[in-house]
């Protein structure tokens, strides 16, 4: 009885929020209702005893996908009003396609039939006492290791694609030579002066910083730095010398 009540609560909120996703005028509201819908779907999975799916739904869909939607909606200048212009014109056509699909689905599922010996099909059975997350883990890395690793490759390809299609070398960007940045010390960036009493700093040339300390750690070619900041011929003192030897080739 309690389960049923919980189910109907989740299901009602899910359907209502899914409807609002489509009908909301403000796209940000749409995304927020989408998140609500995801949470309620996760609740339904919990009711069904599939706690792993519930958590995955929250982590992946709410945590990543919906937040990404939100970013896109807020960052891109998408003119939703303009996108809606065709709605009136295409609505009857869309509704017709939807109706046909619905009829086909009804046709498919009204006479649904399963294979006669479906019970004898070998299935992976969870060991008694295993939770469903643990049971999934059991088979994922043994029975389905090939598919699991292949999925890893699919994700790798997606990552390569994202980098290939979007990463651009920006000549105006300010990039750091990480090694040098790590190796630089106080003496590279700070000149210690002994200022006689009563004369003030100004009389000794004002505040001073070694000239190259401004760009010592930036990569040649980035903004405002044309050549290697530590020229070949010039002796470099302190720990930087090591870095300069290593990266002399960077100047090209």
């Amino acid at each position, binding site marked *: 009885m309690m389960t049923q009540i919980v189910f109907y609560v989740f299901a009602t909120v899910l359907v209502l929020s899914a409807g609002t996703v489509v009908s909301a005028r403000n796209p940000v509201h749409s995304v927020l209702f989408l998140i609500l819908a995801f949470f309620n779907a996760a609740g339904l999975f919990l009711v069904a005893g599939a706690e792993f799916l519930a958590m995955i739904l929250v982590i992946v869909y709410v945590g990543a996908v919906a937040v990404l939607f939100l970013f896109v909606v807020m960052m891109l200048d998408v003119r939703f009003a303009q996108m809606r212009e065709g709605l009136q014109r295409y609505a009857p056509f869309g509704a017709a396609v939807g109706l046909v699909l619905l009829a086909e689905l009804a*046709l498919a599922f009204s006479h649904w039939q399963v294979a006669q*010996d479906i019970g004898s099909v070998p*299935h992976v059975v969870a060991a008694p006492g295993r939770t469903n997350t643990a049971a999934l883990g059991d088979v994922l890395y043994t029975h389905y290791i090939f598919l699991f690793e*292949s999925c890893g490759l699919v994700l790798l390809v997606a990552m390569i*694609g994202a980098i290939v299609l979007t990463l651009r070398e920006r000549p105006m960007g300010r990039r750091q030579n990480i090694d040098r940045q790590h190796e630089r010390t106080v003496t590279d960036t700070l000149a210690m002066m002994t200022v006689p009493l009563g004369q003030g700093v100004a009389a000794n040339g004002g505040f001073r910083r070694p000239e190259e300390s401004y760009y010592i750690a930036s990569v040649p070619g980035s903004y405002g730095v044309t050549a290697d900041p530590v020229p070949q011929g010039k002796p470099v003192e302190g720990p930087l010398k090591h870095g300069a030897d290593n990266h002399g080739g960077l100047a090209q």
Partner: protein
Amino acid sequence: MNWTLALPEIVLALCGLAILVFGVVQKKGQPFLACSMLTIGAFVLTAFLVVMSPDGIGYNHIFVNDSFARFMKILSLAGGALATMLTVGYARELKVERFEFPVLLLFSTLGTMMMASSGNLMTLFIGLELSSLAIYILCAFARDDVRGAEAGLKYFVLGSLASGLLLYGSALVYGFAGTMEYGAIQTALSATSAVPMGLMIGIVFMLAGLTFKLSAVPFHMWTPDVYQGAPTPVTAFMAGAPKIAAFALLLRVMAGPFGHVAPQWQILVEAIAIVSMVFGSLAAIPQTDIKRLMAYSSIGHMGYALMGLSAGTEEGMRGTLVYLTTYLLMNVGAFAVIIAMRRKGRAVTGIADLAGLGRTDPGLATAMAIFMFSMAGAPPLAGFFGKLMVFYAAINAHLFGLAAVGVVSSVIGAYYYVRIIKVMFFDEATAPLDRRPLSLSFVSVGMGVATVGFLVVLGPVSTAAQAAAQALFR
């Protein structure tokens, strides 16, 4: 667990990762050429391992290796290696000179190999996604090129839709059989006399998803735009390995698990074959861009290859396999010529740009003429034997209408192939093309020799195809 069964795939994947790391480390130099060479090396190594690999079913019935899988894998690997070779010469001009390009080609080929070896609907889907995802990226690889970006996006959106259809169909089949494993589905189907409606819809959806990848009519709309927009070596690749792999899936799924309900889907495949052949030959006639022409030509060729499947017999499957082999040879060759079409440093793709090639560059023109004659199906070139075998299978299966449509449409198709030859040899010469790099000459000569001398290897190829077709029906 017999993990060595997938040794070729594992080795290829590890090679891919190693080449990727090599490329990243070498970033300051010019790693493109080195990575391309390593990729070709990896393909050759893998092909060797494929030939040596044993028969068997492994990974809990997820992965199947038999002579059919080996045949298809060798074809895909050849397609991948040839496409990599086509890229090397003009990579900088095509704006694809980055080391990720061969790596993506490698992973796409890996996906096609997994498709050829699938023993489970899940392997089918993941292999398909791996190969398609890499191609979506490759289409848009020259990212400052508006047409390339359009091609990539268009293919991505439509391809995702097709994947969705395929997945939905798989879900319906799973709902019927309670398993995703081919063998078990076959057992479940053989026990039922009548085919339930839900299962039928599932099969049709799967067929739709797979024929989209083949670019057969009525799922062909993306083909001309994507072929035209993508960098030409990518187009050459797309017309080869992924289509062969989609055929591998289609043959394996239709002949295996759904073999018992063959009368239900055969008529559908027959219809798709007929409209593909007719549309492919009629729509190609008014084309003026050679890449678009090749797109329509590939739609037509898929129709002929489907003819073997619709026969539903071992002989038909053998015909399809031989057809795909010949198609790969002449297609790569034709694309090598298209890539070589550059004038004053710019790629030209109009058919009119070929005018007078017979006088300005007789070698290239002869090669193109060989490929065009072969595509038209003139004996004794490779394309003739492929066509002969599928027609023969169709007639033996009493599909006279199908064979008649095939003959008529190949006569119509011959018109636009011969028109290209006429433009090359009999039209007024325009400015000569740029000097082409050695790699393109190498590929076009190699493919030309293979196309002309196919008769010599016809015996071994058709024996291998016969063994592969037998494995399907076992």
